[in-house]
């Protein structure tokens, strides 16, 4: 087993009395792609938002690199945000900024990296993701696939240790879905980041993941290697991956 990077310990979260996370325990290992699957509305995105700090748990802990996120001081929090990036389901690109400005935003707003280095980094990422010719376009002028790449470039510009993907293939056709999966896999190998992917793209997502976690009724009911999920005797997991009601 590789070194754990993100640990969720007995995480509880409820909305209006509805327990969405009911004691979630999960370990995300460094450098691996972990995929979180589960029915719609089971709290997969909620789980991801707890990791990045967009939501606070009712009880339990999220530890990143051994440090509980709710006990971080300002300096540690800034470091935490440099280490983890988040790619939103609908990309969350700023429609009033160009592609270049969107990608550079995490650096230009901070004014900590010199401008020539920012230009260099943006250029590199754009070349790697093959979006150099869209530099001056606005998000509304781009296709869905290119927008995903722009969002990925923005997520990678700070050179994070981990990237969280919230349903990166939702709303895409099977061809585009596969190309987004391939893109994540390729760049994960190239940049070596830890990836956590919430996805409904079954079984394709298993091909690019080393670990799979299944969330059901607020708990992780399966966690293991992606090829092992087909051998499990858990009825609910089997029913879900074969598209049947448990």
């Amino acid at each position, binding site marked *: 087993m590789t070194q754990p990077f993100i640990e969720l310990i007995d995480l509880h979260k409820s909305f209006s009395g509805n327990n969405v996370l009911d004691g979630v325990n999960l370990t995300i290992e460094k450098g691996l792609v972990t995929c979180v699957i589960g029915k719609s509305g089971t709290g997969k995105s909620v789980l991801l938002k707890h990791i990045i700090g*967009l939501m606070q748990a009712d009880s339990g802990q999220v530890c990143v690199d051994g440090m509980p996120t709710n006990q971080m001081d300002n300096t540690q929090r800034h470091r935490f*945000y440099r280490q983890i*990036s*988040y790619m939103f389901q*609908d990309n969350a690109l700023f429609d009033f900024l160009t592609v270049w400005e969107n990608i550079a*935003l995490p650096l230009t707003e*901070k*004014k900590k990296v010199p401008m020539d280095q920012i230009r260099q980094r943006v250029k590199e990422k754009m070349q790697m993701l093959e979006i150099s010719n869209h530099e001056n376009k606005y998000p509304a002028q781009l296709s869905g696939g290119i927008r995903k790449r722009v969002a990925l470039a923005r997520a990678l510009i700070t050179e994070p240790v981990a990237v969280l993907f919230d349903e990166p293939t939702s709303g895409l056709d099977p061809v585009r879905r596969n190309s987004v999966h391939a893109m994540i896999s390729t760049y994960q190998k190239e940049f070596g980041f830890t990836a956590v992917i919430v996805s409904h793209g079954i079984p394709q997502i298993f091909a690019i993941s080393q670990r799979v976690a299944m969330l059901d009724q607020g708990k992780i009911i399966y966690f293991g290697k992606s090829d092992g999920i087909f051998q499990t005797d858990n009825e609910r997991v089997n029913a879900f991956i074969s598209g049947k009601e448990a």
Partner: protein
Amino acid sequence: MLKLYIEKLGLACIDGIRSIGRISIFFFQGICQTFVPFIQTSKIMEQVWFIGAKSMFVIVLTAIFTGMVLGLQGYYTLVDFGSEAALGSAVAMTLIRELGPVLAAIMIAARAGSAMAAEIGVMRISEQIDALETMDIHPVRFTFSPRLAGSIISFPLLTALFDVTGIFGGFLSGVMMLGINRYIYMDRVIRSIELADIAGGFIKALVFGLIVSTMCCYKGFFAHLSGPQAGKGAKSVSLATTHAVVNSCILILVSDYIITFFLV
């Protein structure tokens, strides 16, 4: 039945107190983040352009007709007392002390304030504000601070424009149409205005600028809390925009009374 009404009243009170707390924190964060280095000069200038320069046409149009109506109404009221020569004073004082700051602020709230609320509201529902947080960018600094600074600069300038244009509107109806002597009109305008009147008008403009920018940005920023059924949908943006403009206009009129009470 009575218990239900009391419960609803209690919930409304708690919600109101929460809103006051949220808006206060939002306002103070906005003020503080405006002065946190580095100062966002280019973004502030963009807002001055959007709130100020782009509102000039609507301000000039509103002001000229307001001034013309004041000229007409003032003339027919004053002529009964044989005091039509005082029209310049009446138009100038009304505009500089009251109508200039209030009408200019309401027009800016309708034009630029609604746009602020809608733009930030869309940023909220499309998760752009969440994205800022994940990038460790202060969302209040990014969305509100430049608009606040832009409003503080633009509102007094637009009010001055409104006043001058309105006085010219009064000149058009009073002098050009109704035949009052132009030198008497201008002499009365100049003699009647005191520095305290102009300062009072600018204080009002400044306060209205703070109110409009805070209320509109706040409503957009918390668009997802606009109503019980709003959530993160198009409805929430429309509700936020409506609330932003209506609340701004009400607060402008209420604060106008309070400031006038202390100034007179």
